[in-house]
C-alpha cells in the first residue's frame, strides 16, 4: 500500500517544480531511446534541438513564435478547465476566430491601423467565443458533454472554413484555398522590423507583436481566475457544482462564461497567424496548435505561470525538432509528434506516477531537518 502524504506539508516547490522536472526528464529519456532505436545518436539530436531553438537569433525567434500560439491555446484550455470543462475545441475556435480577424480587418480598413488591430482582436475573440457558445449552451442546458460536442465542432469548423475558402471568400484570381492578402499596413510588426529599428539586420522569422498580446492574455487570465468574482464562481462550479447551487451561484451561467472566454482565447491564436504571419486566411492554419494547447495547459497545471514555460518547452520541441528532421534523415516529423506524445503521457496521464514517492521523500527529509 502506498503511503499517503499530508498534502499541506508538501512545500510548493516540490509539487510544482521538482515533480514536473522529474516527469520531463523521464519523458526525454524515453524519447532518447526512440531516437536511438531509429538509428541516430540521441546526444547529437539533443544538441541539434538546443542549437535549432537557441543557437541563432532567427531560430530563437521561431521558438518564441510557436510559444505564442501555445500560450493562447493553453490559456484557452485552462480557463475552461477551472470550471471543469474539457474544451478540446480550441482548434475549431481558433479557425473560426481567424474568420473574425479577417472579416473585421477587411471591413474597417478605413480606420487608423492601431484601431484596426484592436477591433481585429475583438473580432478574433468574439468569433472564437461564438463557436464555443453552442457546445457551452448544450452542456449547460442539455448536459451534452463538451468533450463530444467541441470535438465535433472542430470538424464542423474545418468543413465550414474549407467551404468558405473554396466557394465564398477565396481570392478568385488563383486556385488555392485562401483569401486575398490584407493590405500591408495592417500587418503586425514582425521581430525583423523591430530589430531593424535598432539597426540589426536579421532574416525572416514569423515572430511578431502577438507575443506581447500572449503575455497580456496570460495576465488577464490570472486576474480573471483568481482575482475576480467571476473566476471565484467559475472555480466553485468546477470544484463542486452542488455547493455552487447551495451558494446561489448559477452553474448554467458560469459554464457559458467559462466556455466563451475559453473560445475567445483560442480565437486569439489567429491574431498571431493572420495579422502576424500569413496576412490572409489559409486553409488549415491552426495546424494542431489547439490540441497541443491541451498538453501545454495540463503540464502548466492550468496556471499562467506554468503555461508560459510549458508553451516555451513545446516551442523548443517544434523548432528544435524541425532542425533535427532536417539534419537527421532517419528522424521524421512524426518522430517529434511521438516525443510530444511521450511528454504528454508523462506529465499528464502518468503525472502521479512518482509524485507520492517524491513528496514523501521531501516531507520526511524536511521533518528530519526540523527534528535535528
Amino acid at each position, binding site marked *: *500500500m502506498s*503511503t*499517503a*502524504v*499530508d*498534502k*499541506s*506539508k508538501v512545500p510548493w516547490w516540490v509539487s510544482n517544480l521538482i515533480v514536473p522536472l522529474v516527469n520531463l526528464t523521464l519523458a526525454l529519456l524515453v524519447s532518447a531511446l526512440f531516437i536511438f532505436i531509429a538509428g541516430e545518436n540521441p546526444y547529437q539530436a539533443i544538441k541539434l534541438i538546443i542549437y535549432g531553438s537557441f543557437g541563432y537569433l532567427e531560430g530563437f525567434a521561431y521558438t518564441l513564435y510557436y510559444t505564442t500560439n501555445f500560450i493562447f491555446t493553453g490559456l484557452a484550455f485552462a480557463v475552461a478547465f477551472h470550471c471543469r470543462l474539457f474544451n478540446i475545441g480550441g482548434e475549431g475556435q481558433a479557425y473560426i476566430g481567424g474568420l473574425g480577424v479577417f472579416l473585421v480587418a477587411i471591413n474597417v480598413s478605413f480606420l487608423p491601423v492601431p484601431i484596426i488591430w484592436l477591433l481585429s482582436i475583438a473580432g478574433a475573440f468574439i468569433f472564437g467565443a461564438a463557436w464555443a457558445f453552442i457546445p457551452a449552451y448544450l452542456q449547460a442546458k442539455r448536459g451534452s458533454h463538451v468533450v463530444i460536442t467541441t470535438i465535433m465542432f472542430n470538424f464542423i469548423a474545418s468543413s465550414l472554413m474549407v467551404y468558405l475558402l473554396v466557394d465564398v471568400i477565396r481570392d478568385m484570381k488563383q486556385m488555392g484555398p485562401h483569401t486575398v492578402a490584407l493590405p500591408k499596413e495592417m500587418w503586425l510588426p514582425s521581430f525583423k522590423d523591430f530589430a531593424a529599428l535598432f539597426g540589426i539586420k536579421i532574416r525572416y522569422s514569423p515572430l511578431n507583436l502577438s507575443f506581447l498580446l500572449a503575455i497580456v492574455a496570460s495576465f488577464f487570465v490570472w486576474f480573471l481566475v483568481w*482575482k*475576480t*468574482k*467571476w*473566476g*471565484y*464562481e467559475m*472555480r*466553485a462550479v468546477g*470544484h*463542486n457544482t*452542488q*455547493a*455552487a*447551487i*447551495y*451558494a*446561489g*451561484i*448559477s452553474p448554467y451561467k458560469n459554464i457559458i462564461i467559462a466556455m466563451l472566454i475559453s473560445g475567445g482565447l483560442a480565437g486569439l491564436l489567429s491574431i498571431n497567424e493572420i495579422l502576424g504571419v500569413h496576412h490572409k486566411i489559409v486553409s488549415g492554419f491552426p495546424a494542431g496548435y489547439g490540441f497541443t494547447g491541451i498538453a501545454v495547459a495540463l503540464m502548466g497545471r492550468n496556471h499562467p505561470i506554468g503555461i508560459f514555460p510549458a508553451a516555451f518547452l513545446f516551442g523548443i520541441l517544434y523548432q528544435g525538432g524541425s532542425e533535427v528532421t532536417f539534419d537527421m534523415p532517419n528522424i521524421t516529423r512524426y518522430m517529434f509528434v511521438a516525443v510530444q506524445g511521450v511528454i504528454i503521457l508523462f506529465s499528464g496521464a502518468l503525472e502521479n506516477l512518482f509524485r507520492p514517492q517524491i513528496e*514523501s521523500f521531501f*516531507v*520526511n527529509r524536511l*521533518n528530519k531537518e526540523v527534528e535535528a
Partner: protein
Amino acid sequence: MVSPILELKDINKSFGHVQANKDINLIVNQGTIHGIIGENGAGKSTLMSIVYGLYQADSGIISVNGKEIKLKSPRDSIENGIGMVHQHFMLVENFTVLENIVLGFEGEIIFGKNLEKAKTDLKNLCDTYNLNVDLDSIISDLSVGFRQRVEILKSLYRGAEVFILDEPTGVLTPQEVDELFKILRSLKEEGKTIVLITHKLNEIMDLTSAVSVMRQGKIVGHTATESTDREKLAEMMVGRSVLLRINKSKVEKGDVVFKVENLTVKDDLSVIRVKDVNLEIHAGEILGLAGVTGNGQTELLEALSGIREVESGEIYLNGEKISDSSGLLNPRELKDKGLAHVPEDRQRMGLVTDFKAYENLIFGYHDQEPYSKSSIMKDNQILDYSKKVMEEYDVRPRSPHLITSNFSGGNQQKLILSRELNENPKVLLVGQPTRGVDIGAIEFIHQRLIDMRDKGAAILLVSVELEEVLSLSDRIVVMFDGNIVGERVNKDVTDRELGLLMAGVA
C-alpha cells in the same frame, strides 16, 4: 476465568508523517464486549482496520489466542476468526442475503450442494442468535437494521470469534438499536467477543464491560465500565472537562417568522418525498425535526433553502411569500432576505473542499461588500475578516490559506457555521450540525445555536441524533415517510415516544 483473545502490542501506524496510531497496547478478553471510544480522528478506525488487515501496521505485534499472527489482508484476519461490520455496509444491493454471504466463499464454480449446505448452516445460525433474517430477500428491499444483521451473519458464517463493529448505531432508529444490542448480548452469551467502536457514551455504559479511550492516536486509558461514568469518559476523550448538558435559558418566543404551508417536494427521481407538510417557527425558537435518515428531511431542507424545486405549497418568511408558482427564490436572494442554511452534507454542499479556508468563509456572500467590489475580490479584506472569525470560532489550525479538505470535520463545520451565523439571519436552517464532529466542537456548536435562538432567530434543526434534538429544541416534530407524524413540546416527551413516531408505528 477470563483469557485474552486479542492482544495488540506497541502498534504504530503513520500516514506520511501523520501518526494515526502510536504505541497502542490493548487486551480484549474472550466473551466480553469491549468498547473503544474516542473523538473523530482519534485513530479508532485506523486501529481496527489494522486488526482487520485492511492496513498494515508499521510496527507492533498482533496476537490471537496468544499466538502471534501476520495480517496482510482481510482474508488473513477472517481465517484467524476476526470479523468486521463496517460503518458503511459492504453488500451487493441486488444480490440476495444468501448470495451476499457466500460471496467469495462459493467453494465451486457451479452452485449446488454447497449452496444448500450454506443455507442450512445459516438458518441454524439465525436461530441461535435470533437474527431473524430471510435468506432469500434482496438486500435493497431490507431496512438498514436488517442489512447490518446480514453483515453480522456474514461474519458468523465465516467463523468469526471476534466481531469488530464500527459505529454500528449511527444509522439506526432507537428501536433498531435495542434489537442490535439484544443480538450483541446473545453473541456474548455464546462466548463470542465484540469490539465496539463508538463515540456515543451511552452505548459504552449500556453494553460494555471494559472500555479503552483513544485520543490523538494514543490509548489514554483502559478501565472497567462499572468503575467509570459518562463525565469521566468524556473528559478522558477530550482531555478536559466537558459540559454534557446544555444551559438553556428560557426565552419568550416571538411571532411566527417562518411558515410552510402544504409543501410537497419531489426528489431527483420524481418520487414525492415531502408530502403536504405544514410548519411554523417562531422567533426565538428552535424547532427540532427528528426522523430516521431518508424520510424526506433532506428534500425538505433543500426545498426550504431554495436549492430544490417546490412541487406545490407556500413558504413565508416574515409574512412575505418567498415561493411562487415558478418555484422558490434562489438561495442568493434568500440569503439577502435573512435566511441562512447550514446544509446536512458539509463536504458535498456546504464547502468547496478544494478552496482555501478564506475562500469558503465568504462562500455565497462573496459578491457583497466588503469581500468584493465591482466584481473584483478584495483579498485583504477577506483575509482580515477570516482571521477574525477563525479566532472567534476557534478554528484550528488558524490558517486561512490552508486548503479546506485539510481541516477536520469539526473545524470544517465551524467554518460553515461562522459564515452562516455572521450575517445574523432571521431564519436559520440547520441540517445535522454535529454529524462527524468531535465532542469538544459539538459543545461549541450547540452553544452557538442556543445563542442565535436567544438573539431571536427562528431555527429549524434537522438531525438524526435524537439526543441532539432533545437537548436543543423547544418544540419537536417527527418526520416519517414524508409526513409530519407528530408534534411534541420538548419537556413532555420521552425518547421512547419519539422513537416510536420515527419508526412510523405510533
